[in-house]
């Protein structure tokens, strides 16, 4: 049963990652791309969790936490950057 679950989730997550990558490529604005990259990181964390659950180990747990830290720092930094760069012309 676990092999069947692994196949189903692998197909689902591959489709989801493809959708997120398409949004990163198409995304009209920088913030759309940041959001899609965040979703891609969440999909990566989901894949790591499924690997842990199917193979019954905990090797990836720190990696899952590290991925969520990277997503947090990345999106906050880029959001600040966007706010600062676009504000300047409208203020002056």
């Amino acid at each position, binding site marked *: *049963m*676990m092999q069947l*679950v692994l196949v*189903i*989730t692998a197909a*689902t*997550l591959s*489709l*989801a*990652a*493809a*959708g*997120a990558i*398409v*949004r990163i490529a198409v995304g009209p*604005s920088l*913030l*759309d791309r*940041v*959001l*899609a990259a*965040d*979703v891609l990181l*969440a*999909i990566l*964390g*989901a894949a790591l*969790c*499924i690997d*842990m*659950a*199917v193979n*019954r180990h*905990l090797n990836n*747990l720190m990696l*899952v*936490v590290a991925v*969520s*830290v990277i*997503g*947090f720092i990345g*999106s*906050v930094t880029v*959001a*600040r950057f*966007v*706010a600062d760069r*676009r*504000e300047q012309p409208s203020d002056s």
Partner: protein
Amino acid sequence: MTPDTTLDTVIDAVSAVFMVVGAAMSLGAAIGLLRFPDLMSRMHAATKPQVLGLFLLLAAVGLQLRTWWVWPVLLLAWIFQLLTVPVSAHMVGRAGYRTKHLHRELLSTDELEAVVQKAAAKDTAASDAEDDDDSA
């Protein structure tokens, strides 16, 4: 041995359902990213795998390992995600509002607009008062 094996089957089935639903959350987020029209509605879809999806998958990990001591570790990982996701979503939404990455006709209410207008009115009043001081 029979009760143990049936319990094993039940736990396996529950964790399998958790895994499939958690992966479906990621797919839902991707479909939402592709189909929703503007940044705010895409943000709504993007939080599904980050909170509920991660919860379901970490619960599946805990069920599969069948030990008690992993649950606090998994809970810690989930609570960490739960604390960081709203902050980054707030920052992205704030930047999106300020840089006008939203379709105003799709909003049902815009509670921030009144605050922004009030602050702008206060700013212009203050600068007018300064101008009066200068002329006097």
